[in-house]
């Protein structure tokens, strides 16, 4: 037994949509916010020139931040650390978790490159003291070092550490920390808007049949079932 839901036709829906006013400048700001937060410097520059929208952050700092992110993504963690420290020495000094993850990534890269002796020395000198101070760091350290125990690293339980996704995770963490230190939101606004849209549609689904957006990337309205 279905409760009868009211149906809204496409015409009706589109009419209602047309009545809602959105400002161009708001959309521009959303786009700029996305480009800036994700670090698309050149696109942000171009967009600024073409639309006249001012970014809420100095574009020069974006390049610096992107250089750090890229370095981590390529596995050049030591380089990334030096760049972060040039940008803002406080970030790693006041963020033990981030610092640990960067050091952990360094260890992973050493293991990946087969530099076993160096890896062990590094783990002992740089990471072990952190593990002593903090239980969860110790556990993560042990997981990382256990990579050395396996012949076939791609199939071992901690194999995901060697995956590129681990680098991306660390890169994202560093990116967020830099943004926060610059008093900028670490997440762009656009995803939140889309989530809100999906949530609102789910709420509306309980009472109405109406043209839904089912594919966010195309944002086309799909007719309600008749």
């Amino acid at each position, binding site marked *: 037994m279905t409760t009868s839901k009211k149906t809204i036709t496409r015409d009706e829906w589109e009419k209602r949509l047309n009545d809602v006013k959105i400002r161009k400048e708001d959309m521009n700001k959303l786009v700029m916010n996305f480009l800036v937060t994700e670090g698309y410097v050149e696109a942000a520059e171009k967009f600024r020139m073409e639309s006249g929208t001012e970014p809420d952050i100095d574009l020069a700092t974006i390049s610096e931040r992107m250089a750090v992110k890229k370095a981590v993504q390529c596995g050049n963690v*030591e380089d990334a650390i030096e760049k972060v420290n040039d940008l803002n020495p406080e970030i790693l000094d006041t963020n033990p978790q981030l610092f640990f993850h960067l050091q952990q990534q360094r260890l992973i890269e*050493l293991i990946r490159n087969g530099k076993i002796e160096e890896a062990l020395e590094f783990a002992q000198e740089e990471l072990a003291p952190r593990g002593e101070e903090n239980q969860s760091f110790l556990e993560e350290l042990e997981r990382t070092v256990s990579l050395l125990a396996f012949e076939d690293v791609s199939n071992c339980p901690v194999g995901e550490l060697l995956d590129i996704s681990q680098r991306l995770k660390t890169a994202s963490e560093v990116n967020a920390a830099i943004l926060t230190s610059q008093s900028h939101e670490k997440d762009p606004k656009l995803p939140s808007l889309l989530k809100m849209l999906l949530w609102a549609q789910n709420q509306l689904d309980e009472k109405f049949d109406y043209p839904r957006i089912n594919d966010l990337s195309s944002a086309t309205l799909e007719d309600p079932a008749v």
Partner: protein
Amino acid sequence: MPSATAVNKHRPSELLSRLASDDPEVKVRALREVKNQIIGNPTKKLSFLKLGAVPAVAGILADSIDEVTNNNNCNSNTSNILVQSAAALGSFACGFDAGVQAVLDAGAFPNLLRLLANPNEKVADAGARALRMIYQSKLAPKYDFLQQKNMEFLISLLNSEKENVSGLGASIITRSCETSLEQKALFDAGILRKLNSLLGGGSLSQRDASLESLATIFRNNPEVISKFAGPEIGRPLSSIIDLVKDRHPRTRLLACMCLIVIRNASPHFLQDIGIKSKIIHILLELLDDPSQVGDEAPFAFSSLIAQKEDLQKLALEANAIDKLYHHLKKGSLHPRRYEGILLALADMCSKLESCRSKFLSLQVLNLVADALTDHNAGVRTAACVCLKNVTRSIKNLSAGYFMNEIIVIPLVQLFPDPSTSVQVAALGAVSNIMVDFTTRKSIFVQCGGMKQLVQLAKSMESAVRSNALWALKNFVFQADNRLKEGVFSELTASLLSSLISDPEPSVQEQALALVRNLVDGCINLIELVFAEDGLILGAIGRQLQCASKAEIGIQGMYALCNVASGNEFHKEAVIQQLFTQMGDKNQSFVIKFLQSNDCQLRTATVWTIVNLTCPSSPGAPGRLEKLRNAGIISQIKNMVNDPCVDVKLRVRTVLGQSMAFGDN
């Protein structure tokens, strides 16, 4: 990728020797490497520190600054050296007190200040940052706000657009502003207006820094607060209140803390129940935050509700105890957070029975008992304080709810704790539990608790001595004779008499109260005060002669009163004590006590006289005569209309008894 030999290149001692190079490029690279090695790494900071890195870097900073001054110009190499050396010093000082001390000892502070004026933005920024790190530490040099020059400099810092520089200004205030005079000076210089503008128009870090500085200036200063919040400056409190709902957790916390400071200094602000509930709600919510913000939230909560029943009630209605319990259950808590939650629970249970009932009904007690064995002393102390407050529940004490192994044994195990604060807190909890009207006090003796209490009564720390005696006092209260005799034989007359004569008044008071409870109720126990040639009785008499506060007099007189309730021999001994100690003083302390403002002291003294002159004793007339000759009876006659009912009734008894012997 660095090879094995390259790793050796970075050895600290090798790096330090490169610091001393004459080649500026080598120097800069070495500085940068030192900086990169120590940032985020407390172990490295320490090892570089021990090798004398800080004076070396400070020396380089000093030399480069001299160069800039002498040449009146700052080339890029020198700028780099300044930036890197400042950054390195800043990192040494970051969250590391030994580093702060080393930086200050190396004389780097004035040089860092000079960097603020450098035209190169990066150099000035590096200097400001390093100074900010120093000012986050308790070791930072005291800033003299009362000097005009200094105030102007501070204002220039706050007016800067650069975050690090204005942040430095705020840090200086937060760290150094202590007295109300300084608070007023800052207000008069218009600093509060500036900070308030940063609340609305500044960046995130400027807002946070301003909130901390404002709280520092407001602390315990109702005058400054009312001037700030007065109508002529708009509605400034609203700018702080708005930040309570800010999206950033740290801002919410700091805004709450600022409002709490305001409310604690001036309770007529923030009366609105809505805002009080909101703050409570937000602080409880912040417990969910995994960072340091969540660690500090329970402490802010405690500062809000401590000693305030109305707020505790409001918090109870907001399910504070449930929420705190929920977080406690999670386990693996950071020690600071653990301590904070326990103290918050302690504050909730400090006054209201409804809170204690809620606490006990949720079975939080077991979790708190677990915390007694934590390796962090702060956590152990907090757990004890929590137990102490919960055991104020008379209903549950009477039911003997707390006198069991789960609670008592871990508490007793804390008696020999290396930390004094843990000992004192454990003793506090035990003292309450001792007020037990069931017959299970033997548990305490069996687990060695009583013997340990006696040991603690000999501690070097006066707080430990007095609290141990407090616990013993409660332990023997209306206890059976066997228990009392056991305690006395463990204590010994000589120890007890020396405690009565202890240099600390609080110890004297508790020792006398202990004697009072020991001899109360049974005539055989009165003999205790006569042991070893009347050591204890003599000590009581001497202490009463020079009692430094009323409470000592009260306990001592009640002790004598109890002794005087015994037989003829006992009464004679007491009256002798009342007069023997006079010495050159013409007046017995009895008259002094009878004339005291403290009604309890007057009551205790009159009671003693009642016992000394009770007509059924053959020696009563003789004692009455002595009292009369010393002017004590006439003093008592003057007290017929004493404002205190207890005193009045006993005075009438004495006078009635004295009339029974004729002469009035």
